[in-house]
């Protein structure tokens, strides 16, 4: 009896002591300007040439730069190069290396590093990629370098945003990467976080403002919202209107655009989606405004083709109204195609972005009105990537595709022979116009071709393009300067604390 009581007494004291210790420790070490950015996707590689995920490119934008880099308005500016000049026939581009530019370890950037980087990138990208036009790099006596192309390409300059890496760091590229960007690598915990700090000798005077940035992987949005409310995270992207509404008033909600084409992509090679009438019927049956209203409180941009509105000069706005919500017309088209009573199919949905699931549910509900039964199969992103994207083993999938600065990047996936033509779309006319657009040097004529491509995709109802989703970003109210990019990038070098 006695022992028993003593035992519990000891336990009680220890517990009380532990709780006291716990109550007393509240460590606040936010003396310097540091910010924690929550990221919704795991980082797949620290090697910028091997990074596939859009989420990884967003982060690595802060560490690496190419000869040129993207600006927030969708143009490019010189980075590692001080200036550049595209040859008149668009078959070569020459660069002057920026004076005094150094890597994070303090060594100067040499022409050999550039040669190494471009060749490495070309080899990794492979002969089917947009980088395949790269032939070689010529190094002149005076230090200028010239990129020689296999054939004329006016859009190749956009490809040269690919990272310039020091040849000497080949060994450590995955553990301690070095670049020329505004921030330099500090530490990386796989699946947890990437910490970077200010690079003091960054070529752009006065940037970056912040001393340290931690990119914390938080794939679960609910957990991320809790952490925003608790003050653990300062910035988090890709919120829906409902999610943003649950945040406390210490955040500004910035409204931008995700700059993805989100929609229900159809496998054009499987029945019944091999029939254009069926695809059109589905398009008429889907209520895109309802999706926008439910998920983004109407803040998304409704689209009708595989292009983002941000690419103003090349964007064909007419495609937005090619289809309207018209269940009656859908039924007629279905009857015409031989499916008067509808049919049943499965929508494969990756779970990496919550609005995809919502979109699929709303689409399924509107298709039920015209007699089509859509089942939903929610899968892990990686499963989706290998089954749907690589193996093309699916009927329909709600997903978003991104592009790069080069306008052709939005259409390359729809070329009938493209290795990543995961919708199995095939239209000789489309292929033909695409070739013309790529070869065209006159920009106005180029825009005409690209708009034509968009109209073809819309008329064919190649897929059910729904929206360029609103990107609601929660930013700590103490911060300012956050900007949106039309590509996958979160530029932390321009963010600063309000004085």
């Amino acid at each position, binding site marked *: 009896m006695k022992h028993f009581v003593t035992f519990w007494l000891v336990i009680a004291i220890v517990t009380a002591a532990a709780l006291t210790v716990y109550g007393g420790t509240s460590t606040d070490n936010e003396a310097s300007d540091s910010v924690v950015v929550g990221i919704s996707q795991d980082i797949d590689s620290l090697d910028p040439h091997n990074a596939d995920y859009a989420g990884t490119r967003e982060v690595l934008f802060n560490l690496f730069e190419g000869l040129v880099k993207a600006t927030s308005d969708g143009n490019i500016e010189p980075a590692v190069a001080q200036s550049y000049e595209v040859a008149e026939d668009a078959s070569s581009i020459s660069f002057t290396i920026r004076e005094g530019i150094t890597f994070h370890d303090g060594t100067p950037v040499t022409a050999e590093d550039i040669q190494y980087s471009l060749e490495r990138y070309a080899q990794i990208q492979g002969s089917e990629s947009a980088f395949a036009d790269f032939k070689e790099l010529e190094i002149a006596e005076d230090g200028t370098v010239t990129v020689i192309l296999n054939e004329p390409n006016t859009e190749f300059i956009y490809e040269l945003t690919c990272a310039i890496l020091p040849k000497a760091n080949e060994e450590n590229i995955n553990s301690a990467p070095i670049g020329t960007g505004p921030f330099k690598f500090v530490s990386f915990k796989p699946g947890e976080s990437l910490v970077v700090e200010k690079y003091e000798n960054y070529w752009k005077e006065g940037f970056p403002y912040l001393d340290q940035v931690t990119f914390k992987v938080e794939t679960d949005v609910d957990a991320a919202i809790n952490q925003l409310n608790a003050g653990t995270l300062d910035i988090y992207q890709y919120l829906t209107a*409902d*999610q943003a509404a*649950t945040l406390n008033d210490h955040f500004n909600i910035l409204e931008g655009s995700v700059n993805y084409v989100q929609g229900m992509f159809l496998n054009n090679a499987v029945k019944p989606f091999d029939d254009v009438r069926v695809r059109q019927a589905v398009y008429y049956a889907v209520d895109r405004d*309802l999706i926008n209203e*439910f998920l983004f409180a109407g803040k998304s941009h409704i689209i009708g083709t595989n292009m983002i509105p941000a690419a103003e000069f090349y964007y064909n706005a007419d495609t937005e109204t090619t289809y309207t919500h018209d269940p009656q017309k859908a039924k007629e088209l279905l009857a015409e195609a031989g499916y008067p009573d509808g049919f049943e199919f499965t929508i494969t949905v990756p*779970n990496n972005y919550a609005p995809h699931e919502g979109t699929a549910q709303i689409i399924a509900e509107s298709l039920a009105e015209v007699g089509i039964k859509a089942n939903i*199969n929610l899968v892990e992103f990686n499963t989706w990537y290998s089954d749907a994207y690589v193996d093309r083993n699916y009927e329909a999938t709600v997903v978003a595709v991104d592009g790069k600065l080069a306008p052709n990047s939005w259409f390359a996936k729809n070329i009938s022979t493209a290795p990543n033509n995961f919708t199995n779309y095939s239209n000789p006319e489309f292929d033909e116009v695409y070739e013309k657009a790529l070869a065209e040097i006159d920009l106005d004529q180029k825009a005409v071709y690209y708009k034509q491509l968009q109209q073809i995709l819309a008329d064919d109802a190649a897929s059910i393009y729904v929206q360029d989703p609103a990107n609601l970003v929660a930013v700590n109210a103490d911060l300012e300067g956050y900007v949106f990019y039309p590509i996958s990038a979160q530029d932390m070098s321009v963010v600063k604390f309000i004085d």
Partner: protein
Amino acid sequence: MKKNRNYSLIIGLVITGIMLALALTALFWTPYSTTGMSLTLKFAPPSWAHPFGCDNYGRDILSRVMQGIGTTFLVSASTVIFGMIVGSVIGFFAGYFGGWFDEVIMRINDVLNAFPSILLALVFVSFLGSGLMNIILALGILFIPSFARIARSEMLRLKGLQFVQSARLSKAGTCRIIFAHIMPNAYIGILASAAVGFNNAVIAEAGLSFLGLGVQPPNASLGRMIDEAGSFLMQAPWYAIFPGVTIIILVLGVALISDGVNRMD
């Protein structure tokens, strides 16, 4: 002798009966469509028209809870029945024959037991893919060891008893002894653990749903609803509370039955 009513059993049966009745009703009729969406009803709080309120797509939560009970019942009951039948048969035979057969079966049992249930379910689902049938299969396999163990010990207990010995002496076949003489006497022990298994299945299904590997939308399961509702706890607490309380009551009912059955012998 004092008349001692088996209140646990009665209350348990009533609760479970109501739940089952709701689930069965949902097969034919729900107050509203379980998938029908409405912008105007988004996050509508509980009212006379929608006693449980509406969710983020304006769907009636009561209707979805009714459907969800059915899904949860289906998953849990199929899982337990699968595990119980396979496990009992294995356990009975292992206990009856003994020897190396028993040894091998029980070692495999130990190995299966060593994997925490959700871990094994995760592994199975990662191979088979999610979906109703796969979840039932994955969880069902998980329950085999516990039933095998109980069936085996029941068999060992009963094997030595008089009536089994005499059946053996009268040259009754093995199967006849197991199914005609032992099973009827072992069922109470097995049923009690079936109830525990049922509750474990409910919780495991909810856990899988939370990890995104459970029942597929737009089908409702109670676990999935709580998971989805987690995001809107501040805006629409009723979205989480009603499915949550339903799960708790469901588990309570079955647990009370299990208590009651235990008290019967």
